[in-house]
């Protein structure tokens, strides 16, 4: 047991990632010192900025403002995406009708949605919601559709021969087999959501993380931007990797392997 713990610690310490990090930090430090320009801050400066933001809790207001937008927008996107996905998965005509629209939606960059949403709604809450819905519903829809198409018809037939009630079929067969797909849609859609929300805030908002990033950009403060990126990105990655990915893995545990490396 003790040997095991010791080995785990040793593995952690002797991990090549530290070499990578040190090389990058060293290079950054050297460049910052050599160039000595205002725009390339030393790593320590960024760290101080980050620590200031964190310890004074100044970040809470903006993070909160952004979170509300993201959650609201993503909620709507989820509803829209699931409905569209179910329609596409179960009705051929709808699938053909919506397919191109969804592909188009997947292809257009979030920037376009963000700009249009800001022009239409200005600073209103509608702007981020619209932009988020438009960018992330296709991801959810495509995944839900795949899930419905992949439903095992043999299982449903089996259920029929055993006269399983519709409700039980839904709860025990359909939903469990859809969940992995839904969750991979949620994970992808969520990561689109917070990115496009940041964009909307950059172009039309007076609070939120995006606005802070914009302010850093306008004042040429690389360290400010990095600090905000660290805080916000950290939070979002925490949600993605500590909540959404485990959830997805949990609901897909019966599948041989999670496919796709998008």
């Amino acid at each position: 047991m003790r040997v095991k713990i010791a080995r785990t610690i040793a593995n952690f310490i002797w991990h090549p990632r530290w070499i990578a990090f040190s090389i990058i930090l060293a290079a950054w430090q050297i460049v910052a010192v050599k160039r000595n320009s205002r725009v390339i801050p030393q790593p320590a400066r960024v760290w101080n900025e980050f620590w200031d933001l964190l310890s004074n809790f100044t970040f809470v207001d903006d993070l909160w403002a952004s979170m509300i937008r993201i959650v609201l927008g993503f909620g709507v996107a989820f509803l829209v995406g699931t409905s569209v996905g179910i329609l596409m998965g179960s009705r051929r005509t709808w699938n053909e009708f919506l397919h191109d629209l969804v592909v188009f939606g997947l292809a257009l960059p979030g920037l376009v949605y963000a700009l249009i949403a800001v022009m239409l709604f200005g600073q209103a809450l509608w702007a981020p919601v619209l932009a988020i819905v438009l960018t992330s519903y296709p991801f959810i829809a495509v995944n839900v559709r795949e899930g419905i198409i992949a439903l095992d018809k043999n299982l449903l037939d089996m259920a029929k021969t055993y006269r399983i009630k519709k409700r039980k079929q839904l709860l025990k067969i359909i939903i469990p087999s859809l969940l992995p797909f839904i969750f991979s849609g949620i994970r992808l859609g969520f990561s689109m959501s917070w990115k496009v929300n940041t964009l909307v805030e950059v172009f039309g908002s007076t609070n939120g993380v995006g606005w802070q990033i914009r302010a850093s950009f306008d004042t040429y403060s690389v360290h400010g931007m990095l600090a905000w990126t660290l805080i916000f990105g950290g939070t979002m990655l925490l949600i993605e990797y500590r909540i959404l990915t485990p959830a997805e893995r949990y609901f897909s545990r019966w599948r041989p392997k999670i496919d796709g490396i998008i």
Partner: protein
Amino acid sequence: MIIPNSKPNKKNLIRSFLQGFFFNRRWITFVVLILCWHFFVLAVDIDLLPTPGRVLESLREIMRSGIFFGQLGDSMVRIGLGFSLALTLGIITGVLMGSRDFWNKFFQDLIVLGLSLPGLVYALLSVMIFGIGLTAPVAAITAASLPFIAVNVREGVRSIDKDLLDMCRVYKIDRVRLIRQIVLPTLIPFIMAASRIGFTVAWKVAVLTEVFGASTGIGYQMRYQFQIFSVRGIVAWALLFGLVMLVIEYGALIPMERYFNRWRPTIEKVV
């Protein structure tokens, strides 16, 4: 499904493509969508929202003024440079990561970080650091799309069939033949997939960089339209650019992928 040993007749291919293109339910969908858009705009009556007709007008203006190809060219040069750089570095990183555990661990965290940083951050940072010029977009594009390429190539290296490698050892196949006949055929589909994802990322970041720090290019035009509050202008530029990307996708990337995948039983439908 493609049957490789029935030689594809070029004429037939073109004909079937044209048939599929013109006699297609898609066009019905398309018309319905345009009509929906038109009547929706008339119904809500917001000044800013353009009808399809007005967008078309903008399109015509852009094409008539003749600036489109110049602006597109500027963007494409940036994308081309950044993307080629990302592809080269990404393949090297991916091969290293796929074949040596040390390099995998070395790069892994950086790659995860790179995958999840939004394009906006790359764009803004490189504009601040490199200012206006060619370096900023190229750096942003390279940094943003490299991780996607590396991850895909790594998967490719890992999926090289160990059984086939064993078989080669038994039959004493030399290294050159091994690489040409086993390693490359396995890797190429992954590199193609990597290129497609990487290319999408590349042009999105390129446009973003142009929004914040360029005086030419598609992104700059969009920003200009944003400043003069012209939704139809943005939509028109987005449409044009999207069209070019579609042409590249269908005209170059997909045929290439199909060529390299010709030995496969079925070609996966491109979503």
